[in-house]
């Protein structure tokens, strides 16, 4: 049983999403193991955010299936969602609450029992470096701290899958480094999906990289594999997403 859980935390097959006549996501397959950090790349409008919203149950897919730790997200949304932590592009923060109040709310909504509440809260704050700001209003925090609160909210219930949509946007270089370290730490024991536009970030943090373009998955390889073949991620990205025609060649090379 335990073996089975470790094998795949997220498995999505044939995921499609249409908005009217426009197909935003077409036939995406995604598989993620425990202890793996997946870099999710693609130009703006490629369908990354749509895919992530589907994986977190914010949007129903037009076709396809999603399983979180073997639990079908569409059939048993509550059980599946309890295992996901999600930080959307804009951190979903209540500016009128203090950091502590907000994180407590997040923990309660994710069914953390009252007994564990204190320890879970302290651990999340510790990890995200929020110990000093627990009593401050979220609205009064700087952008970097708000982003950290967003991450703390996503990891507070100890989820198996963490999905982060551009977590380092708008941060200064030091904060970026801190957050990358945090993501690597988290990735050691859970699965992380990280969407970003910063290619060096992917190379330094992720184990595997997938590139989306016009709603399709056009590239899927491990970072180690890329290094072995001495392929530059930036070149791959440019070739795949600028010129659609040559995509087939690169994938095979």
């Amino acid at each position, binding site marked *: 049983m335990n073996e089975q859980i470790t094998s795949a935390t997220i498995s999505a097959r044939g995921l499609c*999403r249409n*908005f009217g006549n426009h197909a935003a996501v077409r036939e995406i397959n995604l598989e993620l193991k425990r202890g793996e950090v997946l870099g999710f790349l693609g130009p703006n409008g490629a369908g990354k955010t749509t895919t992530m*919203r589907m994986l*977190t*149950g*914010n*949007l*129903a897919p037009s076709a396809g299936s999603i399983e979180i730790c073997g639990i079908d997200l569409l059939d048993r*949304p*509550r*059980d*599946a*969602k*309890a295992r*996901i932590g*999600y930080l*959307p592009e*804009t*951190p*979903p*923060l*209540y*500016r*009128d*609450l203090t950091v502590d*109040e907000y994180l407590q*709310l*997040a923990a*309660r*909504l*994710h*069914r953390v029992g009252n007994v564990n509440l204190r320890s879970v809260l302290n651990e999340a704050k510790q990890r995200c470096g929020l110990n000093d700001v627990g009593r401050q209003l979220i609205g009064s925090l700087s952008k970097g701290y708000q982003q950290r609160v967003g991450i703390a*909210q996503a990891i507070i219930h100890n989820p198996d899958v963490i999905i982060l949509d551009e977590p380092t946007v708008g941060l200064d270089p030091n904060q970026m480094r801190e957050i990358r370290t945090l993501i690597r730490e988290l990735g050691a024991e859970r699965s992380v999906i990280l969407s970003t536009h910063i290619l060096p970030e992917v190379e330094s943090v992720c184990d595997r990289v997938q590139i989306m373009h016009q709603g399709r998955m056009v590239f899927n390889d491990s970072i180690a594999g890329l290094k072995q073949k001495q392929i530059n991620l930036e070149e791959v990205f440019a070739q795949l997403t600028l010129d659609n025609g040559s995509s087939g060649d690169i994938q095979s090379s």
Partner: protein
Amino acid sequence: MIFTIACKELKTLFASPLAWTLLALMQLVLAWIFLWRLDAFLEIQSQLLQIANPPGVTEIIVAPLFAMAAVVLLMATPLLTMRLIAEERRNHTMTFLISAPISMTDIVLGKFIGLIIFFCSVIVLAAVLSLSLLAGGTLDVGLLLSNAAGLLLICACFTSLGLYISCLTAQPAIAAAGTLGALLGLWVVDIAADDADSIMRNFSLLKHYENFNRGMIDTFDLAYFALFILTFLVLAIRRLDGERLRG
């Protein structure tokens, strides 16, 4: 889960000055009406003594107070319901709730109950105002309770309608305007339904409230309120669920 969301609603509500301002203003208006009715009562008190079966202090002071409270709440509700969903959408916090392992029903009911608890405090304040009359006489407690129950039910109706309209938009101001319009519409229906056996009469919220105001609790009124609340709550849940499907 429903209770967690209700608590969160109350916390954010009381964190903003809006709730306190509204509570203070409503109390001011109610106190004003209360004093005005009290004055009127003292003036006619001597004449009342000459009537065989005179109306009591509850009928002369408390009932008009609660009738007016319904109107005040009709004006105040849109300001409170507009934030419920529309503001969550505008602040991108709706994702936070939807990503959590709770259903849309939990979200809608939690928000509904949170606001009802707030309105309970308004009603309690109005009731305490009335109870101060005990200092100088006796009250018809049954009539007072019937009034309070009626006010609670009509508040619940206002809230469920406002909650549904808040689901339709991402702009709190539009939600407020829409709710106020709809509620005033139900008010006008009441005026238009003045000729006794018009069918429109049955649709008017305040007509049903009037019975409670007179101390008459009718199952027809109860059923009407229950249906009204249920309808708009179900519509709100369906609307939010549909959004997840349609995007």
